[in-house]
């Protein structure tokens, strides 16, 4: 029975726990075993099996007393960007290789409040900076998916590559992730999973290692749309410890899945039809349009004229914020310290050794665009273009209820393929980064396989705080797509 339990959806597992078909301890053990057998994927950077079993037993006791919460007994994976009390948290960086938080992030605390069980900490790009998981100090995650007749290791995407791979390979029932420019949705697309980046401010950022604070947002990666809705319901909520956390009630997200979408107006932004995009992705996009038409939606072509400027805007705003946020890693209060002859040398050696190449590159870009003489030309300019991008969306949402786009410009690519060209790597986020700049919610769901047998995703973008409509639309598309493919378990 052990292997079967890991292939359940979160929803089905919670039902099984309620029916007493199995205990959380059995469910958790099955996952602990699966995680152990899948080490070759490098999805987990820290396994916490003892803690998982202890949490599962406590959950079984709560359930016996009739005190079970909405996620009670469900084993989850946690991106190693979320601080977990007493459990090493590294952001996949050498500079935090021995950091053990004495506090718990709000989002993970919400999950434990609702009864979830932690299996361990998931790999990611260093400080969430990357689109292929190759910048991790622990080495890249391997995508569970392989092309037909090929053993070539592929990227699961990034930065939440560990989260996406773990969900795709049944190494957890769902995972936390974070999204600054596409880091939930792009890996979800590359692994055949569902990823939700909620409205900026929906989830507290407190206790999540900061990358670019005006863009960072927590969200789930899950096996189904409904599972993602269940997880997001528990993760969300106002938190006085994050001043940008929105003081709004959390809707009952799962109740939106399955609601009719008839009469909703869906925008198709023509600027997302970019040069060099594989025809398969274009065809899948059209399929998505047809599915929504069949469900009774009205399709409207819309224009988001500043789309092509979103990535260059992001690559000013995000590094600028990162250079400021990462100034805290100075080797004095926590993290790595490299001794040297004077204070300045200690700072420089610590940061020179502690940060990886991509993180250093972004800190340098950020420092440069914020430096005297360049601030107006780069940073201020980018903030103004950001406004124009947000205005484009606002105008579009006068006419439509949601937008449909591809999630990523390609399927999973080979590890190493784009590692040597930063700009080529940045282009992975061309369809996702606009949403972060405007603070909107976005969902990626698996829509089909390409001719190589690799998953492709479609993205729905919604109005601020309108995740509910996105869950209804994503639910309708999921039903129409009937995506049931799973990677072969070659790693086990």
């Amino acid at each position: 029975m052990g292997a079967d339990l890991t292939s359940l959806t979160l929803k089905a597992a919670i039902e099984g726990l309620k029916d007493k078909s199995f205990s959380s301890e059995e469910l958790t053990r099955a996952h602990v075993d699966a995680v152990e057998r899948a080490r070759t994927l490098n999805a987990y950077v820290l396994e916490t099996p003892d803690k998982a079993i202890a949490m599962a037993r406590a959950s079984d006791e709560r359930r016996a007393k009739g005190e079970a919460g909405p996620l009670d007994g469900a084993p989850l994976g946690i991106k190693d960007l979320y601080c977990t009390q007493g459990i090493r948290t590294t952001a996949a960086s050498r500079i935090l290789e021995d950091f053990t938080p004495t506090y718990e992030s709000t989002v993970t605390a919400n999950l434990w409040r609702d009864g979830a069980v932690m299996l361990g900490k998931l790999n990611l790009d260093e400080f969430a900076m990357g689109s292929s998981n190759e910048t991790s100090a622990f080495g890249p995650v391997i995508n569970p998916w392989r092309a037909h007749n090929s053993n070539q290791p592929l990227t699961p995407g990034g930065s939440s590559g560990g989260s996406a791979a773990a969900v795709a390979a049944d190494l957890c029932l769902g995972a936390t992730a974070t999204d600054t420019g596409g880091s939930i949705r792009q890996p979800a697309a590359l692994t055949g999973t569902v990823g939700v980046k909620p409205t900026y401010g929906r989830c507290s950022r407190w206790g999540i290692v900061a990358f670019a604070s005006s863009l960072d947002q927590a969200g789930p990666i899950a096996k189904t749309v409904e599972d993602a809705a269940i997880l997001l319901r528990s993760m969300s909520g106002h938190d006085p410890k994050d001043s940008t956390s929105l003081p709004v009630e959390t809707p009952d997200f799962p109740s939106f899945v399955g609601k009719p979408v008839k009469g909703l107006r869906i925008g198709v932004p023509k600027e997302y039809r970019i040069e060099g995009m594989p025809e398969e992705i274009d065809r899948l996009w059209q399929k998505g349009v047809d599915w929504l038409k069949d469900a009774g939606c009205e399709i409207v072509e819309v224009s988001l004229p500043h789309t092509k400027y979103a990535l260059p805007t992001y690559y000013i705003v995000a590094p600028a914020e990162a250079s400021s946020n990462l100034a805290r890693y100075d080797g004095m209060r926590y993290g790595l310290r490299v001794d040297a002859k004077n204070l300045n040398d200690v700072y420089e050696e610590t940061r020179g050794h502690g940060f990886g190449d991509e993180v250093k590159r972004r800190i340098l870009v950020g420092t440069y665009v914020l430096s005297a003489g360049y601030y107006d030309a780069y940073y201020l300019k980018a903030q103004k273009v950001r406004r124009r991008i947000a205005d484009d969306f606002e105008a579009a949402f006068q006419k439509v209820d949601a937008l449909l786009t591809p999630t990523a410009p390609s399927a999973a690519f080979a590890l190493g393929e784009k590692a040597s060209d930063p700009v080529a790597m940045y282009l992975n986020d061309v369809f996702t980064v606009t949403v972060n700049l405007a603070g909107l919610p976005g969902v990626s769901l698996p829509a089909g396989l390409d001719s190589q047998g690799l998953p492709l995703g479609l993205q729905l973008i919604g109005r601020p705080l309108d995740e509910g409509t996105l869950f209804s639309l994503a639910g309708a598309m999921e039903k129409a797509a009937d995506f049931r493919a799973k990677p072969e378990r070659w790693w086990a």
Partner: protein
Amino acid sequence: MAIDAATVRRVAKLARIREPEERLEPLARELSSILGWIEQLGEVDTDGVEPMASAVAAKLPMREDVVTDGGDAGAVLSNAPADADGFFVVPKVVE
């Protein structure tokens, strides 16, 4: 805008990151390529556009100026690279 090795050295100094001499030229090329790609923002007319610093329009909340946390030096120091007698130990600041 092309960035040269001297500029990389200066920016790395500002960012307190040690970059070995042989990395300065490659970094100058990488940063020039990134910034060259970013230059296309110059095409966008932004006259009179209000800069956008946050995705949340709401005013930042204020709270009472009272102590809400603290009093646990042990927890604060638990990840310190060096500490003694309840204090962080840092390299000599004043020569």
